[in-house]
Every structure is written in C-alpha cells, then in structure tokens.
C-alpha cells in the first residue's frame, strides 16, 4: 500500500493540514478539526504500516533512509533534506502519531466551545509534523528544523489564549528558554562540522572514532544543553511549569508525552558521541539526577493539579535523561520509560483536563475532593495511570522505572550507589506527591463550592483516556517481555558487555523501590486522607514547603541573574548609543559650526585689520621661506 517515500506522507499529511487550516480561514471552521484529526490518524496508520514493514525485515536492514532533495550545498557543507526511519525513530513515530491522534480526538470535544478551535487543530497538526521531522531527520540540521518547529508549535499552543497577558508571557518564556537550548544545538552542529566535516547522524557516527576526546566532549555538552532546554531539565527547567497555561490537551501531548522527551531522543540518538565522551555522559547523569529530585520536590508542594503533573513530568524525564546517561544499557530503558511515561502521563493530563472540564476549569486541588463519585471513569483511568507512575507491578511504570533504578545501581562504584539511591528516593517522593494529588482530587470529602456540579465528561473525552489507560497498564509488560524493546533497539547501539557489578540482586532493588513507594504513599495518606485539608493553602508551613511552592526559587534566580542585569545592560547600551556614539557624531557637527562662528569673528569689518592680516601674511611668508631655505 505504501512504499518508502511514504515517509514523506508521515510529515506531509499533518503539515498539509496545518497549512490548509491556517490559510483557509473561518470558512472551514465547521469541519476543520475533523480534517486535522483524520490527517493525524492517517499519519498514524502510515506509521503502523512502516512498523510492520520494518519488523518483517532483518534487524541489520531495518533502517531506511529517504533523500528528498539537496537542501544546503555549499563547499564541503552538504546537507540533504533526508529522512531516516530506524528502530528508534519508529518508536517515536508511533508514540507521536498515536498519542497525537488520541489527543486530537479528545480536543474535538474539549475545545468544542472555543471559537478558535480550527486554529488550535492547525497548531496541533503543525506540531505533529514538526515533531515527526525532528525524529525522522537524518542529520542534526534536519533535526534542528523539527527541533525549532516543535518549539514554535509549543509557543503557539501555550499562548493559544494569549489575550491573558500571563499566558502570553508564559509562551514567550518557553520560547526563549528553548532558544537557549537551541543555541547549544547549533553550536554542537558547528563543532561537529568543523571537527568531523559532516552533520549527518551516519557521518558523525562513523567519524566519531577519529575525533578527539575534547571535541566529542564539547559536542556532547552542547547537545546536553540543547536537551536541557527542550526537555525542561535543570538549569533550563523553569518554563515547563508556566507552559501549563496552554489548553490541557496541549500539556498532555507536548509537555508530557512527546516534545519534552525530544531531549532524551537527542541524547540517545547521539549515543555514538556520548559513548566516546565519558565526561559529557557523566554530566548527563548528573543533570538527570538533579532534575528528577528537583521536579519531585516541587511536585510535593503544588496545589495546581496541572503544575503538579508538570513537576512530575520534569522529574520523570529526569529519570530518562539519567538512564540515557548510563550508556548502552541505559538507552533502551530510557526509551522504554519514555514510551510508558508517554502513556500514563498523557492519560493523567487528559484526566486532569476532564476534571477541570467538570469543575468549570478549576485547577486548585484544594478545591476538589471526592470527585471519584461524579467522574468514575475519569477516576479509574487516572487511577491506572497513577499506579503506573508509582511503579506498582505490573503496571507500566514498574518495568521501566525499576530497570532505570537497577541500571543506576549497577553502573558501578560510588557513582552507582549515589545515583541509584537518588533514583530510589525519587521514586518515594513521586509516590508521595502523586498520592497527594490523587487523594486531594478524588478521595476525601468535597471541598468545592456549591455552584460547581462535577459531572463526567463526554465520550470523545473519555475514549482517549481509556485507551491511554490501557497503555499505562499493558505497555510496560509488552515492551519488556523478553526484552522486546532492548532487542529491538540494540542494533543501534554498540552494546559493550560491561561487567555486571551487582551490588545487590535485582529483586532486592525492586522490593526496596516498593518500600520507598509505600512509604511515600503512607505519608501522603496520613497527611491528606486522615487529616482535614483546608481549601486554601496553609501559610504556616516549613521553609522547605515555601521553597518548593516557589519552584525552589528558579524564577527568582533567573530574574536576579539574567533578566535584571540584561535589562540594565540594555538600558545602558541604549543611552550609550544616544549619548556616546551618536553624541560624538553630533559633537563633531557642533564643533564645526562652533569653529565657524569663532573664525568669522576675524572678519571685523575694519579695512585696517584686513590690511594688517595681509601684512602679517606677507611677513609670515617671508619668515616661512626663510625657514624653508635654511
């Protein structure tokens, strides 16, 4: 049905949708969203077809590349517009188109009351297209296009309701933070070209052995910077929380399931660089570890349900980044967690959306409570996702997260123990804040005001949630059954048979993890189920809570270190330009006029002074000549 150049359709269909919907204008408001959904769906079908074709091929020739045209060709800098579909990218293709389509469906109902629904779907399609380009590009430069494309889409979607100044600011913040990351990416590409003379994945992979340690480390670090920007990793994490300004489906798709995981993709895709640059790899691990704690801690204090989920996303991606820093063994697990997380986090976001829908867009969990009675389905689906993220066997999270913790411990030495325990602790905290969220929202007694009447959402909203819930239950098992995913991906990585230094058997680790999770749950239960919860955030709280509520002062830090000095610098330069640079020019002009006025005073009007002038002139001529001749 499709041949290889159907790779173009993958991107082409949603891209067409976006362009068409944007250009067509209000005329197509009636059916625009349907078109968008259909296009995204068909992209998914193409993806599935590709998957089966690929599965039927021998592992070594599963990857297919399709050159569209020569994009930039200057001297030795030759970049084709080419697509690469291999075991790694197919995973993403399926995730993006699959979850994407579900969220299209969800949005049809969710955005039904919004007058700009057409534009919303146009953006969604634009995002799908850009994201697919990101994962399908066969060179860093092609990836870069998708990379900024998704940034653009996320900017547009976060700012979808930009008539609210705060939202507009949030979108801008996201774009800027991403741009900082992009800087890293472009620098990485420049270094790669300058040192290796190529920017295609294949080319770099092949040449990476010839390159010096330093160069590779530099590239690696720059790629990491890029990843931190896109995946909201420390220190560029600040934008993600505000990004929740966007409509909930957006948060589900872009800021939970797909875009924010692009950083992980980039690192895994660049495995050949990181494998050869231990320093960079170590940095990856550290960043991941920091972020997973960072997110987890913030998560414990958020009352805004979406922000809580966002914090959790941050932390979960921390897990993935950490894993991807653990070398060949880690990559697969990172991807696995990425996929499972895609299911359950998206599911939970949609659930949150459904709740908000039922509570006329209330987001403060303290104003929820006991909603399970009114929204059973939402409750169940959300609950499954909840169990998954906690890592309760046999739900999805259990397989993926445990593997990561395991690998962390096994990565050896102090480092292993350190990051292992961080991951472990993270799991505990995750359990705490997720239970807190669960309890505050669905359990206990209602705390919302009378005028609200919680009600279950419509079918179109529930369907995607249900499907994702199934994913949150099953995906983990399926992916890890007989190391399915690991074997699937292994041809891409140089599996080094590293010494399994089992400081403790896997079973111990798993049970340890469960203990931590249980502890976290217990604490949450004690704090929020056993004791009454006020519907306003208590102010008499520990400094830690305050810090967590303020996102560990991330914004304050950025303001103090970047914004204010930046504004100051701008002001200074503006005045410098006015006074110094332009001033000099004007000064010269004034000087000329002034000297003119001064000199014209020699023109006294008296004949005798003129005569004197002539006389002096004559005398000085004589004098001068005399000097010259002497």
């Amino acid at each position, binding site marked *: 049905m499709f041949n290889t150049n159907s790779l173009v359709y993958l991107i082409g269909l949603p891209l067409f949708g976006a362009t068409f919907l944007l250009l067509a204008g209000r005329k197509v408001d009636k059916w625009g969203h349907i078109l968008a959904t259909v296009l995204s769906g068909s992209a998914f079908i193409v993806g599935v077809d590709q998957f089966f074709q690929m599965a039927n091929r021998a592992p070594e020739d599963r990857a297919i590349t399709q050159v569209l045209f020569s994009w930039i060709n*200057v001297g030795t800098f030759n970049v084709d517009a080419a697509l690469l579909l291999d075991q790694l990218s197919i995973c993403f293709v399926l995730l993006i188109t699959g979850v994407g389509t579900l969220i299209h469906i969800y949005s049809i109902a969710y955005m039904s009351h919004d007058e700009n629904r057409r534009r919303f779907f146009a953006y969604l399609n634009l995002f799908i297209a850009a994201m697919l380009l990101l994962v399908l590009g066969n060179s860093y430069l092609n990836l870069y296009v998708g*990379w900024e494309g998704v940034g653009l889409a996320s900017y547009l979607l976060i700012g979808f309701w930009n008539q609210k100044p705060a939202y507009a600011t949030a979108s801008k913040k996201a774009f800027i933070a991403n741009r900082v990351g992009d800087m890293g990416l472009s620098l990485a590409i*420049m270094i790669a070209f300058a040192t290796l003379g190529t920017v295609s994945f294949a080319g770099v992979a092949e040449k990476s052995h010839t390159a010096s340690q330093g160069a590779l480390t530099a590239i690696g670090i720059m790629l990491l910077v890029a990843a931190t920007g896109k995946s909201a990793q420390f220190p560029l994490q600040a934008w993600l929380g505000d990004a929740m300004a966007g409509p909930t489906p957006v948060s589900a798709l872009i800021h939970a399931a797909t875009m924010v995981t692009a950083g992980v993709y980039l690192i895994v895709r660049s495995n050949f660089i990181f494998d050869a640059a231990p320093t960079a790899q170590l940095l990856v691990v550290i960043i991941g570890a920091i972020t997973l704690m960072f997110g987890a801690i913030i998560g414990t204090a958020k009352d805004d349900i979406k922000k809580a989920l966002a914090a959790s996303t941050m932390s979960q991606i921390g897990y993935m980044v950490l894993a991807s820093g653990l070398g060949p063994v880690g990559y697969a697990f990172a991807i696995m967690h990425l996929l499972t997380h895609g299911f359950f986090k998206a599911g939970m976001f949609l659930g949150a959306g459904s709740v908000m829908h039922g509570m006329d867009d209330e987001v403060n969990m303290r104003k929820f409570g006991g909603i399970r009675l009114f929204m059973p389905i939402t409750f169940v689906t959300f609950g499954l996702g909840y169990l998954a993220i906690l890592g309760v066997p046999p739900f999805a999270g259990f397989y993926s997260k445990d593997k990561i913790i395991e690998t962390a411990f096994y990565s050896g030495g102090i480092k292993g123990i350190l990051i292992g325990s961080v991951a472990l602790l993270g799991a505990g905290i995750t359990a705490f804040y997720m239970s807190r969220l669960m309890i505050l929202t669905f359990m206990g007694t209602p705390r919302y005001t009378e005028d609200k009447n919680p009600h279950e959402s419509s079918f179109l909203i529930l369907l995607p949630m249900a499907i994702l819930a199934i994913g949150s239950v099953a995906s983990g098992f399926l992916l890890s059954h007989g190391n399915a995913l690991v074997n699937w991906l292994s041809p891409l990585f140089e599996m080094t048979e590293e010494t399994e230094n089992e400081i403790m058997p896997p079973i111990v680790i798993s049970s340890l993890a469960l203990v931590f999770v249980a502890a976290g749950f217990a604490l949450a239960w004690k704090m929020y189920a056993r004791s009454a919860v006020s519907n306003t955030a208590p102010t008499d709280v520990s400094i830690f809570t305050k810090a967590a509520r303020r996102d560990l002062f991330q914004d304050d830090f950025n303001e103090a270190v970047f914004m204010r000095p930046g504004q100051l610098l701008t002001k200074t330069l503006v005045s410098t330009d006015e006074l110094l640079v332009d001033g000099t020019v004007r000064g010269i002009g004034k000087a000329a006029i002034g000297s003119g006025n001064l000199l014209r005073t020699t023109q006294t009007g008296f004949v005798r002074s003129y005569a004197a002038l002539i006389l002096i002139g004559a005398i000085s001529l004589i004098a001068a000549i005399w000097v010259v001749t002497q």
Partner: protein
Amino acid sequence: MNYLTTLMLLPILGAVLIALLPKSQGLFAKYAALVTTILVAVLTVVMAREFIRDSTDLQFVESYDWIKSFGIKFAVGIDGIALVLILMSVILTPIVILAGWNESEGGRWSVKTFYILILILEAMVIGVFAASDVFLFYVFFEAMLIPVYFLIGGYGSGARTAAAVKFLIYSLFGGLLMLASIIGLYVISGQQGDHTFDLQTLSTLQISSTTQNLLFLGFFIAFAIKAPLFPFHTWLPDAAAAGTPGTSVLLLGILDKVGTFGMIRYCLTLFPDATKTFTPVIIVFSVISILYGAFLAIGARDIKRLIAYTSISHFGFITLGIFAMTTQGHSGATLYMFNHGFSTAALFLVAGWMISRRGSSTISDFGGLQRITPVMAWSFFLAGMSSLALPGLSSFVSEFLVLVGTYTRYPAAAIIATFGIVLAALYILIPVQKALHGPTSPGNENLSDLNLREKIAIAPVMAAIVFLGFYPAPLLNVINPIAQHTIAQLGFTDPVPTNGGK
C-alpha cells in the same frame, strides 16, 4: 541584447513619462510606476535565465568610453552576487510601490515626484550593482543618495528633515573618503600603466602595504557607514524611522546592501593584503554589531527603530560571513543579503500598515491585534520569525551558513555571535507580545485588517521567505561559484575537518 543598460534605462524612461504627466494625474503616475517596475522585474528574470551559473567572470558585459581622458568607461557586468542582489532589488521595488500605494500622498511635493524619485533610485541601484568600473560605481554610489534624501525629507514623517540631512551627511562623508581612495587607485594605475578604473585591471596593481591599508580604509569606512556597521550606524534608525515604510524598505532592504556588496566586490578584490590585515578587527566589529544591534532592538520603543536596529545586528552577521573567508561564510553572507531584503521588507511593510492604521509607531500603543486583524498579525509574526531565523524560513539557511563558515575559522567569534540568536528571539517576541497578544488595548478596537492590495503585496514576500527556507538551491547554485572564486582569489581554502586536533 544589452540587458543591463536596458534595465537602467527602463526606469528612467518611466520617470520621464511620469514627469510629463500633469500634476493631477497622481493615480496614473502610480500605475505607470508599478507597470514600469514590474517590467524591469520581468526583464531581470529573463536575464537571470540566461545567466551562466558556473562561470565566475562577469556576464552581460557592456563597456563604452565615457570620459576618455581619465580612462573612465561606462562598463557594466554582473557576477552571481550582483545578479542575486539586482534580482532582490527589482522584485522588492514593485512590491514597495504596491504596498505603499498611498505613501506618496501628503508629502511635501506631488504624488508623481515620489514615483519619479523611486524610479530614478531603482535605475541607480541597478547601476551600482552592475558597474564594473570603479568610477562609475562611485558615481552611482553617490548619486543614489539624492533621491533617497528627497524621499525621506519630502515624504517622511516626524523629524524627517533632520533624519534626511543626517543620512546624507553621513553617506557623503563616507563617499568622500572613498573618493580619496579612488583617486589614489587612479594615480597608482597611471604610474603602472594607463590610467584606468577597470576593476579587473586595478585588482592586479602592485600597491605598497601602507598605501593599500589606507586605500582599503577609505573604501571600507564608506561601506561600513552604508551597511551600517557599529559604530557608524546611528544614522540608520533615524532615517528608517523618519522615512515612509516603503522608503525604509528600499533603504534597509536594498541600499544598505550596497555597503556589504561593496566590501565583497571592491575591498576584497582590490586590496587582498589589506583585507587580511584588517580582517580580525572587522570580525570584532561585526560581532559587536550583532550583539549591540540586538540589545538596542530589545530596548527600542518605536517599532520602526526596532526594525532598524535588528538590521544592524543582521548586517553584523553579513560582514562576519564576508570576512570569515570561508565558502560557507561567503555564500551565507550573500544569501543573507537577499533574505534580509525580504524579511525586512515584510517586517517593515506590515509595520507600516500597522502604524498607518493606528496612527502611532510606539509599540506599547498596540495590543491584541491578533484578535482584531488576524491576517496582519500573522504576516507580522511570520516576518518576525524569519527575522529571528527560524529554521524552515529562508534567513535560517543564510544565518547558519554564516555561523558555520565563521566557526571553522574563527570559533570564538562564531560562539559569541551565536548568542545573537537568543537575543533575536527576545527582540522579536517582545513586540509580538506587546502588539499582537494580550487584551485589545484602547485605540485598537476597530483597526481594519489587510485589504486585497496589501495581501497581494505581501504574499510573494512571504512565499519567497518560506520557499527559500526549504529550497535555497536556486540562489545558492548561483552564488557558490563566485563565492568559492573570491575565496580562492584571496588565497584562502576552506579549513579541513580538524578532528579536534587528534
């Protein structure tokens, strides 16, 4: 067929025709000007199709004696770079006329005068890019100023007179420095053979290094003022803010390119050694311009000034690319000139429409336009995106080429310059947020959206921006050969992959 002279004569004829019209025939003058410029554009495209891509020497060469006793010839001929720039100019001019359909009214003088000036300017611009005789180039370079001067001073707004004078004085000063250098060249050519201004001949002169440096400076400062490069830029914001949007497009989009074009065509060709001497300094100033312009743009309150400052930053990139002395940098820089022409045109035209509707050019006076005038807002947004070099839009290709090309030779400069892309995001998104987003601020409620004429005017620009973003090959194929040639002439070869010194 003598394409180039025809191209120059056509606008002149149009100008004469319009001049013969009675004052009352304003509308007819507009159509006449539009038709003429479109004809010129078409003819240029026809010429471009005959252009032989892979040859690096001048094509469509014509040469007539002009002032024999000084060895001055009316000699024209174009290489890939000139072709691209002429294309840009002749395509933008009709768009400007169409977009600024009513700019010509309410000036100091009649409507037809406006179009006479525009047409004369177009002829001069074609001449300045096509000239292959240094003296002829200089004549166009200077004469070009006069129409612009009257366009700004006669049809502009605000402190138009002061701005016009500032522009003229600045440029004249630069021009005179260049004249001194040209005289120097002329005399030296006389000492080493017949007096001549033929570019090729002059480039073979043996010039002592000190003289060469001085002559180089004469040319370079003139071009740096035109381009404009920090610290010679302060005329630009005033002029751009005072001129009509159309004038400003011609000014930033086309005229300023003469500066960067001159650097390639004259500074590099005539003074290879001096070029090498000064390259480090120029690199530094380019980088400064990039960041400096960006910061000023961030700090700007007036939307026209903002765009002007962004251009300063962009010209920093262009000079950086030129003096990086790599194929990528060179091609990138040339492509950048073309793309900058279009993205700035888009930005300025839309800004002009916003201003004329709102009656103010202060960014903070706008607000929530996206809801009232979606098409206009979108056009502005897209133009802005291309100005911040969003991948997939034309300016990305050029900007990235410049950066890559620079990195291979001057890593430090490239790294610093890269900060420019973050600043770019700021200086575009800040006005976007203030003007397009947020609640509809008072005074904007009933602004009208773009009408058909304006849509027709902006559509090709947008199309070009997007198309060339995905498929720049048509231009690059024309630019690459000459770029490689120039680099080779200067005795440079692209750095080979270093493997990081392993």
